[in-house]
């Protein structure tokens, strides 16, 4: 468990310095654990609904990562963000859930199970972006293009693509929290 704290915080620190690969690895490690938490607590949502919640939590981790105080341990921060978003997501879906915080502590420290959900498609978030943002998001996420390649295709500077991407993700976060329709 201390290993996980050390490993994950090192990855997130690298990510916050701008290392995209470390960030992808960090999120890749966090996701199965999140999925375990969401699956255990939100059976009524069904697999697709659960995966939507997992994605909402990931986006929240992303948009709020600067609120982690690097001099403090990472896992408590991660518990808090996860718990808040999971409760919020379940509440908005009309179910009330009891989520003792200990569950998160244990789940975050337990080994992740291999998961079959990783390949599942959930299209809720992109579907509500405007066409251009959705295009950029799809190009980067589904087709794995770099921001430079997307820029070349759309005749935008790479910087402009980055800004557009950043805004699109923020918009997805707003959609996920239910303040935008």
């Amino acid at each position, binding site marked *: 468990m201390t290993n996980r704290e050390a490993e994950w915080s090192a990855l997130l620190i690298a990510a*916050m310095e701008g290392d995209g690969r470390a960030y992808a690895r960090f999120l*890749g490690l966090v996701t199965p654990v999140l999925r375990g938490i969401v699956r255990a607590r939100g059976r009524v949502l069904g697999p697709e609904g659960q995966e939507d919640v997992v994605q909402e939590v990931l986006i929240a981790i992303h948009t*709020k990562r600067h609120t982690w105080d690097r001099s403090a341990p990472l896992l408590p921060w991660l518990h808090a963000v996860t718990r*808040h978003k999971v409760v919020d997501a379940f509440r908005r879906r009309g179910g009330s859930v009891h989520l003792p915080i200990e569950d998160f502590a244990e789940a975050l420290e337990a080994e992740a199970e291999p998961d079959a959900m990783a390949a599942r498609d*959930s299209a809720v978030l992109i579907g509500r972006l405007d066409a251009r943002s959705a295009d950029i*998001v799809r190009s980067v996420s589904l087709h794995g293009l770099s921001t430079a390649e997307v820029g070349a295709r759309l005749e935008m500077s790479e910087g402009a693509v980055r800004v557009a991407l950043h805004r699109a993700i923020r918009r997805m976060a707003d959609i996920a929290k239910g303040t935008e329709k």
Partner: protein
Amino acid sequence: MKTDDLIGLLAADAAPQAPLRPVRIAGVVLAAILAVAGLFLMLAGVREGLAAALQQPAVLAKTALPLVLAGLAFPMALAQLRPDAVRPRWWGLLPPAMAAAGLWLWGFSVLSPAERFADVSAFSVTECLGLIVTLSILPLAVLIAKMRRGASVAPARAGALAGLAVACGITTGYSLFCTQDNPVFYVTWYGLAILLVTVLGAVLGLRFLRW
């Protein structure tokens, strides 16, 4: 979108983020409070004989109590910026609140029935409540706007603490202008004004600090 694709997307947006700086936020909001309260005192003027008046305990308490409350509430509000914040230690606010209640009771007991509510008029109450609430609005808006970058797991609570801190700061400044030295008057109406701004903060928090 598949979750793995989402991870790729988020990783493409890994540009360095400015860290959250609670101390800087505190600095900006304190500057806003000082500017608003300072401007008000410049325009309206501090009360006549302020230095002499502050020699009286009941007058000093009128300024000191909101100052102490502001000093306690500010760190509590700023702690709410982080999701893993410890729960606020509400009992920390108890001593000044008890002191205020004690002051009210003392004022009530020493004054004759005619004197107790002698200062209460539509004008004096409106002046006191209206000015404290009005002067609080801008600094509170600044604080709530700054707190949007944070991630409070209890938005209403975070907003309420922000309102409490700002209102107490403004009340401290306002008390240097105010000539109502009867604790029965000022504990009641300062208290109500602070409560109103606290509730306003909670409402704003619920609206703007969700994430």
